[in-house]
């Protein structure tokens, strides 16, 4: 299998799924995170438990949901509940193993901005805001972020911290009072897989996407980005994995474009 046989987006999704283990309780919205977790469920984590912000527990998701209120994310759940049940009773309660996040900016401490570009009180661009993202980042044991790698998305400091990464250093979360004080935070982009180094509280390169150099990544990043000593290359998906992804996880190609 050559790199032509899968898209970068597919690789990102498969790589993300590798951070989800069997029996994990996973809080997920829609979009690529849902594709990645659905892939994990069908590939190697059959007992994974979805928890949807709107309250559904362990649904058997069908089709390609376009919202957390979509009946597709509630299908055959073991329980329907409320937002408080999911975000309070599962997430803040400390039972979420993995949460997926998105955002407009991610800084060196893996803090995330999904609120505003420019000044908060007179914004240049206003985004939708936290939603459940702040809660996910505050309470999950592992936080996964899938995003495109552009320099403006990786500034030294977010214009506005919507969701906490390591705040301002290795002990930043504990000092801020966050119950999940030292979570694993992994950022998967089209160039690289980064994770927070517990010793510094900062992101560093863990693995490069095939064919990408450390230089390339650094040129596209707005902060100093160290590399782990053993930084290797992201393993490409197997043929079977690509087939599973295309034929069973996103058969309509709603989220993942097939390679041209």
């Amino acid at each position: 299998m050559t790199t032509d046989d899968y898209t970068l987006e597919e690789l990102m999704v498969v790589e993300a799924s590798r951070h989800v283990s069997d029996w994990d309780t996973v809080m997920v919205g829609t979009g690529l995170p849902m594709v990645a977790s659905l892939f994990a469920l069908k590939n190697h984590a059959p007992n994974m438990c979805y928890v949807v912000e709107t309250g559904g527990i362990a649904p058997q998701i069908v089709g390609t949901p376009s919202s957390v209120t979509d009946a597709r994310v509630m299908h055959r759940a073991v329980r329907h509940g409320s937002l408080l049940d999911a975000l309070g009773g599962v997430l803040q309660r400390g039972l979420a193993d993995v949460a997926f996040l998105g955002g407009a900016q991610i800084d060196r401490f893996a803090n995330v901005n999904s609120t505003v570009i420019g000044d908060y009180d007179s914004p240049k661009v206003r985004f939708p805001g936290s939603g459940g993202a702040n809660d996910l980042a505050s309470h999950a044991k592992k936080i996964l972020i899938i995003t495109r790698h552009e320099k403006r998305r990786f500034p030294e400091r977010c214009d506005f911290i919507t969701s906490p990464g390591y705040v301002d250093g290795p002990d930043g979360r504990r000092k801020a009072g966050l119950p999940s004080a030292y979570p694993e935070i992994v950022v998967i982009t089209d160039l690289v897989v980064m994770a927070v180094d517990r010793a510094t509280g900062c992101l560093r390169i863990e693995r490069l996407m095939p064919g990408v150099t450390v230089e390339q990544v650094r040129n596209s990043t707005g902060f100093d980005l160290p590399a782990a000593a053993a930084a290797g290359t992201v393993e490409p998906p197997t043929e079977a994995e690509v087939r599973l992804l295309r034929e069973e996880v996103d058969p309509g190609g709603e989220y993942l474009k097939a390679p041209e």
Partner: protein
Amino acid sequence: MNRKSSNKVMSAAEAVERFVHDGATVGMGGQSIGRCAMALTHEIVRQGIGDLTLVGCNLSMSMDLLVGAGLARRTECGTGNLERFGTAFRWRRAIEAGTLEVEDYSHLAMASRFLAGALGLPFMPSKSLLGTDILHKQMEGGSDSFRVIDNPWNPDEPVVLLPACRPDVSIVHAQKADELGNVVIEGFTTQEPEMVRASSSVIVSCEELISSEEIRRYPDRTTVPYIFVDAVVVQPWGSYPTSTYGCYEHDAEHLRRYQVCARSGGEAYESYLREMIHERPDFDSHLDGAIGEPRRRELEESMRRLM
């Protein structure tokens, strides 16, 4: 308050006129593209009730309509968007233009504020928001809505306190209600169980009026008992173009059409308001204009396949 009535069924026009007032804080039911109280929202727009503070977790198309119609002074929420259908554009533009006050929260933080209101408590602790600008920039900006105290049993551990949110009136769309005001919400319930209980008045629109006999036969299924409800509006398709779980799917075509108008603003948006709301005497008339029978059957069928 109309809680001492054994028949709370009334028209949307009457309910909104009686329970939604200029300057009110309005709790917004539904989320994203699901079960938003569209019929009740249209009626507020039609009656031009303004200076509103809109509160909820995710505020979506119903909020965006009220902002776009110039009826909102302020929002307090976790997000303003329609998920895959995009940002709430009238809201976004109003914030960027500085014509709308906003206070930002996370979804759990807003749900916690409603929980405090529902339990008669002045505030609720939270472990969200810590270490963020949601907390710090808003506090520096003068917001009085956040306090950080030390956990009295673990002195080095900061805990956020959030004041109760108690809407003057909440508007909610549900699958079923009886004439006393008992409400059955099926599927996801967002922040509604807490928000409704925290509210001074509550208007519920429903797909179907059921008998109190049926309510009493299945008391485990009642989401909100009648003692919290002031008005019941029977309005099939009352969340259109957002979905009602078990009844019909969202109408992606209409949502996209709205988003195009909301994104452009100006005359495109004004004509949406005019054609869809102001020129329509009621929500049934809006539905007749916006969606034909064949499409309704399609959206119902599409939901049925997901059950």
